[in-house]
């Protein structure tokens, strides 16, 4: 059992207790009964291979090594036994530490196995979800979309049809003249109808100016931007 050639790399050990435990298990010894001093040589052989490690890490290994050597020395020379009791860790204390560490390592192994199995839980991420405000009109969206469609249709009409080709001032004048003759008064808004194109509005307005110039109608507006009222002028009396 003396000075086995180290066959495990130093990096494989996680501290001096890990190495000591490894030796115990390697030799199939029982932690409860093994004479820890007997492991001193094997332990030192492993530590000797550690020259490449940082000094502070090696020192921890050396501290345990010296303890093991001391335990071995005591077992060989029982006369050393009573010396400096409180300073050094007794074999039993070291044994207990090793036992405890063995439990830790086993538990760590179990936790690691759980981690590798990947059977973890997940919580719900994030805060509250932003919901649209309540109490809005149910068909508000449909209405809004309807308006957009109407706008788009109008836009298309203006793009495609040149106003001059579609409406003529003469034709519009005749239409308005007939309308006024029939119902005496009419508003500009009525003439423009629901959704006038710019061209239609311009033609209608010019037709009105022309009718006014010819003395067919009177124009009145109560205030700025108010609707324009168109009334038929009694032309017949003038002519007679």
């Amino acid at each position: 059992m003396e000075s086995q050639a180290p066959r495990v790399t130093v990096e494989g050990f996680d501290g001096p207790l890990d190495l000591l435990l490894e030796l115990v298990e390697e030799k199939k010894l029982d932690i409860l009964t093994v004479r820890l001093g007997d492991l001193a040589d094997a332990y030192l052989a492993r530590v000797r291979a550690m020259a490449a490690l940082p000094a502070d890490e090696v020192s921890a290994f050396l501290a345990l090594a010296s303890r093991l050597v001391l335990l071995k020395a005591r077992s060989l020379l029982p006369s050393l036994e009573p010396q400096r009791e409180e300073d050094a860790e007794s074999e039993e204390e070291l044994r207990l530490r090793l036992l405890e560490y063995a439990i830790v390592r086993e538990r760590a192994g179990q936790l690691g196995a759980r981690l590798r199995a990947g059977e973890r839980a997940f919580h719900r991420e994030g805060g509250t979800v932003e919901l649209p405000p309540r109490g809005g009109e149910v068909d508000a969206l449909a209405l809004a979309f309807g308006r957009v469609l109407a706008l788009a249709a109008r836009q298309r009409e203006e793009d495609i049809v040149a106003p001059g080709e579609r409406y003529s001032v003469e034709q519009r004048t005749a239409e308005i003249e007939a309308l006024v003759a029939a119902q005496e008064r009419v508003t500009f808004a009525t003439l423009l109808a629901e959704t006038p194109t710019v061209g239609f509005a311009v033609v209608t307005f010019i037709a009105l100016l022309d009718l006014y110039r010819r003395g067919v109608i009177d124009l009145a507006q109560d205030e700025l931007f108010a609707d324009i009222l168109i009334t038929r002028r009694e032309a017949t009396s003038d002519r007679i």
Partner: protein
Amino acid sequence: MTRSELGRIAGGTPRAVENALAELAAAYEGTGLRLQRSGDEWQIVTAPEHAPQVAAYLGADRLRLSPASLETLSVVAYRQPVTRAEVEAIRGVNCDQTFYTLASRRLIEERGRKEAPGRPILYGTTWEFLECFGLQSLDDLPRALSPEGALVLEGAAAPSEPG
């Protein structure tokens, strides 16, 4: 969410809340969800059986820990609240780095200070720890060797770690 919070909102006694929580836990059995308890904090989480699917959906990476970190984590988990010096005494090595790693991954957190010389910081595990290991509570921690053995060793650990 804590039990007292639940009681305040639902207007029930702690006992009633306890019963309701037990009922809820039973109702979740066999579904994709379950209750997780950390101290007095309760939380609804996904069941670990479905972790592969949930992880795929979330694009979550699997947590990886070195053996050293796992050892430190296991000591903190089973011994909490515990100081770093106590963990180092048990593992026989310096644990600065592993404590830093575990804390930055939110697996352990500070739990106040120990009434001892220097008032060292005490550490415990987080609810993220339970989540990552798929534990419903700390009672779910895997048992190793004999629990009595751990108790016997509790007082005997000699923290005489030279430099």
